[in-house]
């Protein structure tokens, strides 16, 4: 099984001979350089693709919300209003960049970059396919959880540095919400780590299969519950409705990014939309079988890689749709309810799931429910 | 190019800065910041020695425990700071002299 893009390419003889011929021609071994270039290119491509996906996120959100509310939604720019996001992008870039007079300018400028940094750093480990992964860290999931907590700092600083009451309250809510919900999310992820026996995405996805009965979602009752805990926690961590208290329009104008304009606001928005995509992708990889397609040999070929990426994107987009659907369906929570849900319900349930998964592994020798039912 | 000494130098610098921060600043939170730096310097040393001068990775374990202790210390310390602020409306370290008189 391949783990990174570079290794995937190097597994083809054509590519290897090509590299060695260039090395001969230059008189030095260029393999590391080529590898580096592949990484650079891959990172660029993935970042661009995901940024675009984030952009389309806004479009999807507007379209779907319009559909839910029996409206038409954006339909002016391009076919079906598809180019709306380009128009929005141009508008944002060309807007004047205003900073409040009393703001802490250093932090004010830093905050959106921290948020976007935290989100984009997670791309390094997201598995789009068995060969389309930037790097398959052996602490992949852990890394993802750790680095995405930078977003919390960004949100908090954005709220603090604006020197505005709305922003301040939004930032505080955001930070406390993110660090609180990190606990049930991490515990749910840990349960999956237990099941697969490793923290790398490659291993976690690899120990599942293409068909639903091989997914961790249906591995045992505890993992089934864990998925919903993770999904709820992820909604809260990405500040999505019904947990969008940090940017509650009715109370806080626009929350922590009230004072931001132009591209800085755009960065915050992009970070949010991309993070939703990332979180959906993580949920897909952990519970819904990830990029798995039927057939070992097929998966290795180039067409297989395409199929894997397609499967992954389809599943992720389905979850993305659910997220948007939830946003336009459920009312917002109160702050105390938010904390109660996290500390009194989700965390104990997540701990219970973790212990339950461990017990299941010991008692049933790691077999899933289906294996037990159809055991011969 | 990279050797044990480079890590030791960084760790020494961190320790030095942390100690200075701890002594010089009057804000209790700043003192806690200094303590974090000192703890990190120590943890870095552990890991560096573990890589360059030992055959096992016990150093990693030690630095993990250092992180744990830092977390506990930060939580309790900041709780004390906040409570102190509620009482005195200041977190100036020199005001915290109740035990003197």
């Amino acid at each position: 099984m391949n783990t990174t893009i570079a290794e995937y390419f190097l597994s083809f003889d054509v590519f290897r001979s090509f590299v060695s011929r260039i090395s001969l021609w230059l008189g030095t071994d260029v393999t590391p350089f080529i590898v580096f270039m592949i990484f650079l290119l891959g990172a660029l491509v993935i970042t661009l693709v995901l940024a675009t996906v984030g952009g389309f996120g806004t479009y999807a959100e507007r379209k779907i919300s319009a559909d839910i509310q029996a409206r038409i939604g954006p339909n002016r720019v391009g076919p079906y209003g598809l180019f709306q996001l380009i128009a929005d992008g141009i508008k944002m870039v060309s807007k004047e960049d205003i900073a409040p007079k009393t703001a802490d300018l250093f932090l004010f400028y830093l905050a959106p970059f921290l948020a976007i940094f935290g989100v984009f750093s997670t791309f390094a480990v997201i598995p789009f396919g068995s060969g389309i992964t930037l790097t398959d860290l052996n602490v992949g999931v852990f890394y993802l959880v750790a680095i995405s907590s930078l977003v919390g700092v960004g949100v908090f600083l954005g709220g603090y540095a604006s020197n505005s009451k709305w922003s301040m309250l939004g930032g505080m809510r955001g930070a406390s919400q993110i660090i609180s919900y990190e606990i049930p999310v991490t515990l749910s992820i840990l349960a999956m780590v237990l099941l697969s026996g490793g923290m790398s995405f490659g291993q976690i996805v690899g120990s599942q299969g293409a068909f639903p009965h091989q997914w961790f979602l249906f591995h045992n009752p505890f993992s089934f519950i864990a998925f919903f805990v993770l999904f709820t926690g992820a909604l809260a961590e990405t500040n999505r409705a019904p947990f969008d208290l940090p940017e509650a329009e009715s109370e806080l104008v626009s929350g922590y990014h009230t004072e931001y304009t132009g591209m800085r606001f755009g960065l915050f928005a992009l970070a949010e939309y991309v993070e939703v995509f990332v979180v959906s992708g993580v949920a897909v990889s952990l519970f819904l079988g990830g990029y798995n397609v039927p057939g070992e040999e097929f998966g290795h070929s180039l067409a297989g890689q395409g199929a894997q990426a397609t499967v992954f994107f389809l599943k992720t987009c389905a979850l993305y749709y659910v997220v948007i659907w939830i946003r336009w369906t459920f009312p917002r929570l109160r702050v105390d309810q938010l904390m109660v849900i996290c500390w009194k319900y989700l965390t104990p349930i997540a701990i219970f799931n973790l212990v339950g998964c461990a017990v299941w592994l010991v008692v049933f020798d790691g077999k899933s429910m289906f294996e037990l039912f159809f055991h011969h | 190019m990279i050797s044990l000494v480079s890590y030791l130098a960084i760790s020494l610098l961190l320790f030095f800065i942390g100690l200075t921060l701890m002594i010089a600043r009057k804000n209790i939170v700043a003192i806690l910041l200094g303590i974090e730096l000192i703890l990190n310097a120590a943890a870095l040393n552990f890991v560096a020695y573990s890589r360059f001068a030992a055959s096992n990775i016990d150093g990693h374990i030690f630095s993990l425990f250092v992180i744990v202790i830092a977390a506990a210390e930060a939580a309790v310390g900041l709780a004390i700071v906040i409570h102190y602020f509620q009482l005195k409306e200041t977190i100036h370290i020199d005001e915290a002299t109740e035990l003197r008189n």
Partner: protein
Amino acid sequence: MYVNILFLTSALLTVGCAVAMLIARNIMHSCIFLLGTLIGIAGLYVTLGADFVAVTQTMVYVGGIVILMLFAVMLTGGKEFVSRAQKLLGLIPAMGNKWSFGIAFLTSFVFVLSQFVLIKNIVKGVEVTKEAKPFVSTVEEIGELLLTDHVLAFELSSVLLLGALIGAAIIARPRKERVAND
């Protein structure tokens, strides 16, 4: 080569942010620079092959401690305040100005020097392996060590964390106003 680049970047980030932390007047900025330092140290851990420690460092410090610090700073006023001049015997000035920095600098320097002198022999005694070991995953090994050789420390630290959790919650909980009868 990449390791060297990473080392240099991390070292610069670490030291630069640490110095900035020291000289920043605004305590909020100090906290942010602390964040930079900690991420830099995580990078250094990566160059040392300590992947698990690096990620743990990021997780605990970035996700927890720094945000706690920011909260604490915000809840306690946030700005660096001017220290009142208090002099002990007219000799040791109150710190928080250039004098205090000078004193602190000197003290730290002397201390570090003395420690250096003290551990000089020990450092010499350590046999430094010439070529660095290959990078291997440490996760499994750490997991195994934590549950075998270091299980007591592991359990004790969990107890410590629980104690800290409860202690912090109790100390920082909002007090009711005292009844007026006393």
